[in-house]
């Protein structure tokens, strides 16, 4: 099972977008339309996140978000071999993305891996992702926007 042959889609970097960034930056009236649009993208197969993001949501997300994630199971892409290897390779290149002493996994490297493999946009960056993009520069390719 690989993720390489699928058409380009947006890769949702995690619920930081839905809850963290959106909740802090956007006015509340925008949130419902944002959620609706993300839902439409997911239904159309134009939006994906690695399964580790679901783990993150299950672990620290709000009950609302957990319910939302459960209702959008199609969003989450299993960690196929190519994603595993690409994620591990990114973590090896950017040690800041993996702290072996930490008790939990950040999905960041695997989200980047999925975007790389699908040759697509990465939405949106966390601070670490920004650092990586600044240094790597070629992770986001498909939509022309470099985040």
């Amino acid at each position: 099972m690989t993720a390489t042959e699928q058409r380009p889609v947006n890769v949702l970097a995690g619920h930081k977008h839905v809850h963290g960034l959106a909740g802090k930056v956007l006015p509340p009236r925008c949130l419902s339309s944002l959620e609706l649009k993300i839902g439409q993208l997911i239904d159309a197969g134009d939006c994906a996140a690695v399964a580790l993001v679901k783990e993150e949501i299950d672990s620290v997300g709000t009950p609302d978000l957990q319910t939302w994630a459960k209702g959008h199971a199609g969003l989450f892409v299993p960690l196929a071999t190519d994603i595993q290897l690409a994620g591990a390779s990114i973590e090896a290149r950017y040690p800041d993305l993996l702290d072996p002493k930490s008790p939990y996994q950040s999905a960041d490297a695997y989200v980047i891996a999925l975007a790389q493999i699908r040759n697509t946009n990465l939405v949106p960056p966390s601070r670490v992702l920004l650092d990586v993009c600044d240094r790597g520069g070629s992770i986001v390719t498909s939509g022309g926007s470099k985040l």
Partner: protein
Amino acid sequence: MSVAIPAEVNPTLLVWAREQSGYPAEIVAKRLGVKLDRLEAWERGERKPTVRQTQELAKYYHRPFGVFFLPQPPSIPPLAAEYRRLPGVRPGVESPEFRLAMRVMLQRRELAIQLNDELGFAVPEFRTAARLSEGPTTVGQRLREALGVAIEQQLAWRDEWQAWREWRSAVEQSGVLVFQFPKVPLEQTRGVSVLDFPLPAVGINSKEGAPGARIYSLLHELVHVALALGKEETVALRELRSDTQWMDVERFAEEAASEAIIPQSALEQQLRGITVVRDGWDVARVRALAARFRVTPLAMATRLRSAGAMSWDGYRQWRADWSDFVASLKPRRGGIASPVDKTLGRAGRSFVQLVLEALDANRITAVEASRYLDLRFDHIEKLRSELTTGAAGSTGVDDGD
């Protein structure tokens, strides 16, 4: 994830993570619901676990999933190079519970330093060094002075829970992080210190039910921190004293902690108002005196003995009476700690405050804040409010055990 995808893990890392966790293979296999042979085959590289099984391993070992894909085991100092020598813990063969408690403490301490730096705050510096040659009374007095706890203030505290919060806050303000850890049997340790400067950390076993006992453990650990700063003791891995010599250091710490919590002058003043002949102390009288200082009766009896108000024989008799009294009590009824109480109890107010400030300043994400505080994101606002009102932890269920 319905499809069983094999995980391309490095078997060496499977062994490393298990050994670092302290769990034997049998326990891990049982926990994962696989045969021991299967786990051993994974660790030899003869078979591969599925992604789901690898995630389960990561959860059980409290390691990031990605660690199993590293080309070689990371170079991490042994835990015993961080914590003080403990009579009940052998360096290198610590229990899984103790290992996890230490790792959480160390990670929080590292985060605290990092967040202080990111926010442009100066890391508070603990400066009270102690020497064994000074004697425990002098050291206890100096520590109390450094903490700035006035005796009038102490005698006016409402109850032992308030006393615990006030002592803890005073220690945190002096530049020492204070955490509580669950699940470690008391026989292993009641407290532990991380002897790294700046920002050393003290961990208190939350199985210690009485707040007065936690206070005593806290001050006991603080003495060890002060001795480490004075170069009188070092981390468990490098501490070379014999067991007998080490017990002398432990006794020193006990006496200094007693003096810090119950100063001789304040004790004498209280004793002037009580007519008890030497060794005439019964359980009720010691309890009444202990309540005034917001300490446990056992700590008070120990203090009376060290102050000369009890002989060793009288002390032994009192302890026997005390044990009978405790055995006659109904089992303690624990309340249910809220998630916010647990976070405040375990991580401490100063660490929580720091994480919230970092979140507000957009230095960390909501996910990171939730992870650092071990709290779901929707509880963060309640945590913020409890932090302001100071109500949390007043119920005696702030440990989450």
